[in-house]
Structures are given as C-alpha cells and as structure tokens.
C-alpha cells in the first residue's frame, strides 16, 4: 500500500459546516454550568469574620499566600478569590468584588476588606466600587505593572509597544486561559489576526522556576513572538500586603 503524503502542518485546515447557531447550541449542551459566586460562597458564608478579608484575583492566589507567609502573616487574613478567567472578562470584576464584599460584611459591618486587584481593565469601575464600600485595592493599572514596578513596566512598554506579558500564573495556565480561553484552540489560523500587533512576549517571573520559564518560552513560540524573561519577584504586592497588615 502506498504511503500517504502527510498534509503540510502549517496550512490552515478547510473549515467545515457545523450547523450554525443551532449546531453550536447542540454542542454546548453538555457544558458544565459554572456556579455563581453566591452559590459558591453564600451558603457557607465566610469562616473568619474576625479577620480582615482579602478578595484576590484567582491569578494571584499563590503569590499572595507566599508574600503573607514570608511576612509571617499566613493566618492574619481570610482570603477569598474571584475566577482567574476574569482576566479575559474584566467587566465582571467590579460586580464580583462588590458581591463578595457585601457578603463578607453581613456578619460584621465594619470588617476591613482589601482588594487584590489593580484597575485590571475595569476602566475605573472597580475604583467606584472600592470608594463606595471603603475597600482598598492595589495601586496601578494591572498586575504586570505592580509586579515589575511602574517605572520598569513603563520602560518595557516604551521599548516595545507590541509586548505581550505573562506572569507565573499566566505561564502556568497559558494553555487554558490564553490559548483555549481566547478561542485559539479551534482556530489557530486566527493567530495572526489576533496577535499580529505583538512582537515579543515578556515573562515577568515572580519565582525562579525553570519549568515555568520553559512554559513561558513555549507560549512565546506558539504565539510566534520573541521571548524575554524578566525576574520581578513579588514587586509591589509585598507593599500592599504590608500596608494591609499595618
């Protein structure tokens, strides 16, 4: 039997009919419904109303815990997280933070609450919630900036405007949050359209972990971007936690 000539791997596959909207609805039927914040936290309530609360982005969980542990504050706060996938849907963050804060103050109206987010693409809407409910958030526009430090981040952006950033968390979860989360998994031929403006990927490393560096470098290759690694440590996250504890 003659050997089949393999298809060139870089040629986009011909798309096929999949039934339009009706086909999509049928395929989506088996998807797991994500429980609401109220369903996840509301029934049990918060466990330690006597402690101040930190509402963190799910992408900052390990980092916040590491900073607290290093400062000897591992048990000083209760911590609750919002979904890391909201990195892709920043408009959901303000309402999510508000829901958590209101729930957390049901048992103790004067409970101090800190918000482990920067503005994070909410365009001032998170500040509106923080001002109204007297919550304190991390200063700055986003986690890249507070990990790298504002001046250092601005210098990187100035050096190459087309820079895509990863943190430890984003490097670890690149496949789920970025590649699949932005819909590139089924549509890799759209990469150029979606990432065409980017030239390089900078991995802002919070820890020295060669496995994460490999993942970040692999992400850069997948996105067809130049790769650079910049060690930042926890940056201004440490200052935020120290201020919260004071």
């Amino acid at each position, binding site marked *: 039997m003659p050997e089949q000539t393999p298809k060139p791997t870089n040629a986009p596959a011909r798309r096929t009919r999949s*039934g339009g909207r009706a086909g999509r609805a049928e395929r989506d039927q088996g998807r797991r419904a994500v429980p609401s914040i109220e369903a996840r936290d509301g029934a049990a309530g918060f466990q330690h109303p006597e402690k101040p609360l930190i509402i963190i982005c799910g992408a900052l969980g390990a980092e916040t815990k590491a900073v607290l542990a290093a400062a000897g504050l591992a048990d000083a706060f209760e911590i609750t997280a919002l979904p890391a996938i909201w990195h892709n849907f920043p408009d959901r963050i303000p309402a999510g933070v508000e829901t958590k804060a209101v729930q957390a103050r049901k048992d103790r109206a004067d409970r101090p609450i800190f918000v482990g987010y920067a503005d994070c693409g909410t365009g001032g809407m998170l500040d509106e919630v923080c001002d109204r409910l007297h919550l304190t958030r991390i200063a700055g526009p986003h986690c890249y900036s507070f990990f790298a430090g504002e001046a250092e981040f601005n210098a990187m952006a100035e050096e190459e405007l087309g820079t895509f950033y990863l943190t430890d968390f984003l490097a670890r979860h690149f496949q789920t949050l970025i590649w699949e989360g932005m819909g590139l998994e089924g549509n890799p031929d759209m990469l150029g359209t979606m990432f065409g403006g980017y030239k390089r990927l900078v991995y802002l490393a919070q820890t020295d972990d060669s496995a994460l560096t490999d993942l970040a470098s692999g992400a850069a290759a997948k996105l067809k971007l130049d790769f650079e690694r910049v060690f930042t440590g926890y940056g201004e996250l440490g200052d935020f936690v120290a201020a919260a504890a004071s």
Partner: protein
Amino acid sequence: MSDDDLDLNALNDDELVEQMGDDLYDGLKEEIEESTRILLDRGWTPYDVLTKSLVAGMTVVGEDFRDGILYVPEVLMAANAMKAGMTILKPLLAETGAPRIGSMVIGTVKGDIHDIGKNLVSMMMEGAGFEVVDIGINNPVENYLEAIEEHKPDILGMSALLTTTMPYMKVVIETLVEKGMRDDYIVLVGGAPLNEAFAESIGADGYCRDAAVAVETAKDFVARRHNMIGARANA
C-alpha cells in the same frame, strides 16, 4: 450526503438565506462567496443580498458574541466570511446607487496596538452600508486630524483596550474642541475598559459596548444628524 456536499444552487431563496446565516456563523468564506453570487444571478439586488442575508446573519453572530457563546476568533472568521461577500457586492452597490448610510474614520489610540475590536467594528459598519476609513493602531492626534480633514466623515471612531491608553481619547477630543472642529463630527468610542460614564466625561457623543451596538449607535446618530441638517435647511 454530508452537509459539506450541499448543493447551494438546489436551495430555494429562503433556504439559501437560512444556509448563509449558518455558513456565516461557521465562518465559511468560500460558501458565502458562492451563495452571494447565486443570489445575484437570481436577480437579487446587491442591497438586498447585503441586508437580508449578510447583515441579518452577522446580527445573529453579534448576539451570540455578546452573550458569551462565541469566542473572538469565531466572530473574526464570521466577519471575514462576510467581508468576502462584501467584496463581491461593494462595486455593485456603488453602481446601483444603493443607499449609503454614512462614513466613519476609525483608529486605535496612541500607545495601543490592539485592533480586534476596531476591525470588527469596521467590518460590521461596512456591512451595514457605512463607508469606513481605518487608520490602524497607535494613532497620535495628528493622524486623526489628517484623516478627518481628508475624508470628511460623519463619524470619528476611537478604540482602546488599555486603562492606560483610553485617556488619550480625551486628548483627541480636546484638540478637536480647540480647533473648533468638535461639532463637525459624531465622536464614538469603544474598547474593553471603557464605559458610558467615561465616554461622557471625555465629551464623546456615544459609547459602544460592542460592534453590534456600534452599528446601531452610528445609524441612530447619523439619522439624527441628517434630520437636524434637513430641519435647518427647511427653516
């Protein structure tokens, strides 16, 4: 016979339009080109092909994107398929004197290289009958001024994805005010971190949450503007 062996010529008009909706949704460029040609061969006017099949199909895509059912690349594939149909229709629309709704200059602001949303708005606006001049990404105020002076659009559209770049929209609007040009244009803004309050605070005429809203908002403003001009002319 599988769906992919479907003979589009064998479908009646209603079935074909319905199939075009599905093919747009699935981002099938060649199929949309073929269906567009079939409808034209059957005597449909280019304007009817545009509005009753392509725009109607993209409205469904826009709704499912808004509801979080479709991902960005899928919407881009659908928009690319629509654009393929548009490429066939565009010269015919010009020849047949189909109604031209208005015109727009659009670009992403200085310091920002993100253009997915802007590209979607451009394609959807073209699909809705607007003439669109896309000036690309990372635009300083001078680029906007040059483009609006050259093309004299009804609408100036600005896009930004970053909290750090969206304030630049205010710089552009303030420059228009300083030059006494602000009232010559409808200024619409959009982008993930923006909201209604921000648009109002910088003096924009409207905030567009997504591409489908941008089309509706643009139509609404242009109609109001034409009514005002008509009223002045009749006064």
